[in-house]
């Protein structure tokens, strides 16, 4: 295994030497265009692009959770709460659910003719981000004084509370209207409509795909920028040593709440999108298993590593939503066995997770820092510049 890796590293080094310096950038652009052009390579009859829309939504979820768990080191087991809140934001502001209200902002002519609150899809995404960000801060508040496993338990409870609230919310009346639709869920969701583009429909998957593709790019952009910023460094400092971090002037409450809020906002955006894509918002979508599934993507990819998390999400979501149900499902039948592969879904996942954790516990693409801990340093420049102040102590000769 190690020899293989060393060989691979050598090849990569050789490749980097022969390729011109702009090759990395060119590869990124090619990947970007390739991703955007993906729907053209598959016929409308193929289910693949449909499934990729869901997969990309999970990439957004995983990147959001990575901010909380990976960057700030706060183990959150209730991420499903933000999926639910985002989806319900869509249900509230993009359907005839609040039947007594009449509010229409930039919607299709059909949606404009029915009662209820109907906002433009992009506006709904913004609302979902704002609402879940506030909820994230709210959920974060009671966990501020907790550490590690205790945070996990509290967030887990919040995830469950939201689900139970969604089930029982139909008994809570605001202005004569229920807050949620109970176990039935909110149906009759408006199809997203954008002026100049038209209404999205189920027959043409391309607008859906490009919308979520754009959201993934936006999420990536924000993640990369924040990671390399003052705030990103403050998160890592808090994760590494809370006492030292506050002594260095990092405000504990604000910094942690930023992590919860930003992570939650992406969960909300993606949740609203998935709600629109499935045209239904119902409580049984918001199971505890979802939180674990997204957490598995983050850990398999590499805690705190943006590209690792993208890879982890693409891999696990594809296996779960495309490979097992669509491609390999009939495999046992071909061998004359009387079951389908979806029955083994959980077993397959368990096996894969154990495999990854045994072979590569640091994740598929580990965070740069974690890798550094093994290899030494970055930019080992051989500049010799004697210190101006504290001379007389030679580094290295110090005794412990």
């Amino acid at each position, binding site marked *: 295994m190690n020899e293989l890796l060393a060989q691979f590293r050598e090849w990569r080094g050789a490749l980097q030497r022969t390729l011109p310096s702009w090759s990395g950038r060119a590869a990124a652009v090619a990947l970007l265009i390739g991703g955007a052009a993906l729907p053209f390579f598959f016929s409308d009859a193929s289910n693949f692009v449909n499934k990729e829309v869901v997969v990309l939504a999970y990439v957004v979820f995983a990147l959001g959770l990575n901010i909380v768990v990976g960057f700030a080191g706060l183990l959150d087991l209730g991420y499903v709460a933000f999926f639910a809140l985002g989806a319900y934001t869509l249900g509230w502001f993009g359907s005839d659910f609040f039947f007594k209200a009449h509010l229409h902002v930039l919607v299709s002519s059909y949606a404009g003719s029915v009662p209820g609150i109907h906002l433009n899809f992009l506006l709904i995404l913004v609302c979902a981000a704002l609402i879940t960000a506030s909820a994230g801060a709210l959920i974060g508040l009671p966990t501020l004084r907790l550490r590690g496993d205790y945070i996990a338990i509290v967030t887990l409870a919040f995830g469950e509370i939201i689900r139970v609230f969604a089930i029982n919310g139909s008994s809570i009346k605001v202005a004569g209207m229920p807050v949620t639709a109970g176990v039935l869920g909110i149906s009759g969701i408006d199809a997203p409509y954008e002026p100049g583009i038209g209404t999205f429909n189920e027959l043409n998957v391309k607008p859906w795909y490009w919308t979520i593709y754009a959201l993934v790019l936006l999420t990536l952009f924000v993640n990369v*920028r924040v990671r390399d910023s003052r705030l990103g460094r403050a998160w890592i400092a808090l994760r*590494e*040593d809370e006492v030292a971090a506050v002594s260095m002037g*990092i405000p504990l409450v604000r910094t942690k709440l930023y992590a919860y809020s930003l992570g939650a906002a992406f969960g909300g955006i993606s949740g609203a999108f998935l709600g629109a894509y499935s045209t239904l918002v119902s409580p049984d979508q918001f199971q505890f298993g979802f939180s674990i599934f997204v957490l598995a993507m983050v850990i398999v990819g590499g805690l705190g590593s943006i590209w690792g998390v993208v890879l982890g999400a693409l891999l696990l979501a594809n296996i779960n939503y495309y490979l097992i149900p669509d491609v390999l499902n009939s495999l046992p039948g071909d061998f004359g066995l009387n079951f389908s592969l979806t029955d083994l879904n959980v077993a397959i996942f368990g096996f894969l997770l154990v495999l990854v954790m045994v072979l590569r516990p640091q994740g598929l693409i580990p965070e740069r820092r974690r890798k550094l801990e093994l290899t030494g340093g970055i930019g080992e*420049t051989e500049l*010799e*510049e004697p210190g101006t102040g504290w001379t007389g102590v030679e580094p290295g000769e*110090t005794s412990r």
Partner: protein
Amino acid sequence: MSVEAAPATYAPSTEAILNAESVSKEFGGLRAVSDVSVDIPVRSIVSIIGPNGAGKTTFFNMLTGLYRATSGRIVFLGSDITHTRPDLITKMGVARTFQNIRLFRAMTALENVVVGRHVRMRAGLFGSIVRTPWVRAEEREVRQKAADTLSYVGLKRSAFGQLASNLSYGDQRRVEIARALASDPKLLLLDEPTAGMNPHESAALTDFMRKMRDDLQLTILLIEHDMRVVMDVSERITVLDHGEKIAEGAPADVRTNQRVVEAYLGKQG
């Protein structure tokens, strides 16, 4: 042994940068610090000494806001910081190092110092995402300043990009001091900075403390066990024992103080 309360002839000095006025800290039934009053004159080097468990680090933690004093008052530059949050105290100009080095181990030496600069930076969430020109300029400036500070404490340039956990012990101590200096403190608290150093290294650090004080116009408060360092560098010494202040004064006075000798060596006869 019976220890009488410290004499109540305490009068706050007008030129003090920090006054602790009969500060106490109780953990449950344990009185870790009891009625301790200390004045730290501007641009002085003051040491707090005492046997293990005397309450020195607890006192430090109260000054930096990590612990809240049970009673008493702490005044820094004229404002009461007894109940102020640690990050705000840092912003006001108090920085510290720790007895057991507490660097951010997964960050490079340079990044550690950049984090130390956090309170003097302005970039928020929005600025970080959009990365406006002034945020870029701030980031560049802070990195340059961090590199300068690391050079100042004598870290080799080749170590700037090394992870803190991979640095040698002596270098980790340097980085910790640089991280504290990055916030432009007026008062620097050093918690046993020479722990684990040989006499040669301790002497170098002692000289460096004076240099820092003069270059950066700092006031330095020091917890130290190494008596050679303490007697050499301090202008004033406060001695704690069992949470109480048992002596205070110039090194020569403290050295001959009967109660200090008793606290360290036990009662004779």
